[in-house]
């Protein structure tokens, strides 16, 4: 269980930045800002949060997971590629039945971010087919999903209607 009580982890030092700018701040400021971790490795926090793919240097195929090799061409060199933070809703479903502990209804979708497909929830929108429509323009947004027992805050992401931003 994630504790809702916050206790500052004096003895915890982040092992690696993991793309999270908060870790790079001076010590005096760190006492004022909750330590944050992204929900997934491919979410880059900081002033301009964005998603980041492993891009095959040989064929340009993009992947969000840790790679052994490229599923498109088989080569093994990758570079980090920033994904566009705006996109178009290519597909969606409104999930009304889910595993225990998952709040429903929620909107799951595929967002075409300038040619790269991204899986994410569509957030800040009424979860019904009148408000969620194919082709709608969306923008990446981040939000806290909770604190762990050490007071570290995890940051999740979703895509919200562009008009609302």
């Amino acid at each position, binding site marked *: *269980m*994630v*504790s809702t009580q916050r206790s500052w982890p004096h003895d915890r030092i982040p092992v690696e930045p*993991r793309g999270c700018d908060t870790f790079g701040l001076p010590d005096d400021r760190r006492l004022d800002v909750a330590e944050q*971790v*992204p*929900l*997934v*490795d*491919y979410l880059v926090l900081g002033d301009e949060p964005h998603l980041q793919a492993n891009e095959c240097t040989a064929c340009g*195929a*993009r*992947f*969000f*997971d*840790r790679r052994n090799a490229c*599923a*498109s061409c088989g080569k093994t060199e990758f570079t980090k590629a920033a994904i566009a933070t705006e996109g178009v*809703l*290519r*597909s*969606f*479903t*409104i*999930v*009304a*039945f*889910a*595993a225990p*502990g*998952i*709040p*429903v209804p*929620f909107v*799951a*979708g*595929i967002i075409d971010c300038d*040619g*790269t*497909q*991204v*899986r*994410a*929830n569509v957030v800040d929108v009424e979860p019904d*087919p009148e408000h969620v429509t*194919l*082709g709608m323009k969306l923008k990446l947004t981040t939000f806290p*999903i*909770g604190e*762990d*027992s*050490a007071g*570290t805050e*995890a940051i*999740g*992401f979703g895509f919200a209607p562009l008009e609302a931003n």
Partner: protein
Amino acid sequence: MASDDIWILGITMTKFGKRPEDDVVDLAAEAALGALADGGVTIQEMGVLAAGNLMGAAAGIGQQLQKQIGQTGIPVYNVANACATGATALRTAIMAVKAGECDMGLAVGVEKLSGAGLLSGGSRKEDADTWTPKGRYGAVAGLDGRVGTEIMPGVFAQVGMEYGYEHGGATFELFARISEKNHSHSTLNPLAAYSKAMTLEQIMGDIMIAYPNTRPMCSANCDGAAAAVVVSDAKLKTLDPDQRRRAVKVSASVLTSDPWDEGCQQLPNVNTLTRRAAVQAYEQAGVAPEDLDLVELHDCFATAELVHYDNLQLCAPGEAVPFFESGATWRTGSTPVNVSGGLESKGHPIAATGIANIWEVCHHLRGEAGDRQIEGAKVGLAHVIGLGSACGVHILEKAA
């Protein structure tokens, strides 16, 4: 001289539905013994056994079955390939016969799924005490429901909606009408798990699982098994005229996996591998889509059936919506699809499905389908998708 054609000599499916008195082996044995009897052969004549039971994939259903119906010492292949498990078992037996290792083989698929619920694939553990990155995405917490959905009704809902994004017309009502068709078809199938017609209003008004799929638009979890005996052309020629007359030719047997393309690791692409399998199958069989008298395709959800009209080239590219709206896929139409009731109504005991759909086609080609017989059926196609993905396509032809 014998050709390298392969024939279905005997084939059976059990009654699908709740089978509380029967365990997995009982169901597998019922189907296997049924298929052997249907083909007029015995387990002693089988040179290979391929068997699948996805939920118990580690338990070796093939050997468990042998211990009930005949431990003859033949090679056994226990196969698992998601919802394509049954088709994979059949294809394994076909490959062994084609390779000349034996002249007859038995394939079995069996599943007990009654009461399994609708949520296969969906899971999210309680969050841990501390946010610790885990797995290939370095996730500090469960992703199901936070980064899209893992449940199958939701995944396949998006498959159908994506088709709508590309080609238009994919409304909630359209998908519900596909389900209405399959539920109507199953009223003529005494082996179906559900054989009650449902009105469009009932389907649209039922419990929403993952928009636009309501409960009756999802495949029905149930118990069941199916089995087939395959035989080489040379061996078939030595058998009785009655066995030869009822034999059904396997004109194409194809299995594909999912080639990489952009987005396929975000939303499974069930289209490209199905297209490829269909192209290969039509070429192998020397058959064109318009030659098909009936099609059993993998309607695991109403949203999936639509895209496979296009993938199997039953319609012009992008034209699945008007194709369905024309009535073509009703049993009275030009290309009847899922006259068995499909997975939505006949039921979907996962590993049985890939042989049960071939049983349905064979039943019509033999002219033995009773009330639901498609008159004069000579050529049929059976298709399954196992998410991950694997696609099996078989084309079957009536004995000349």
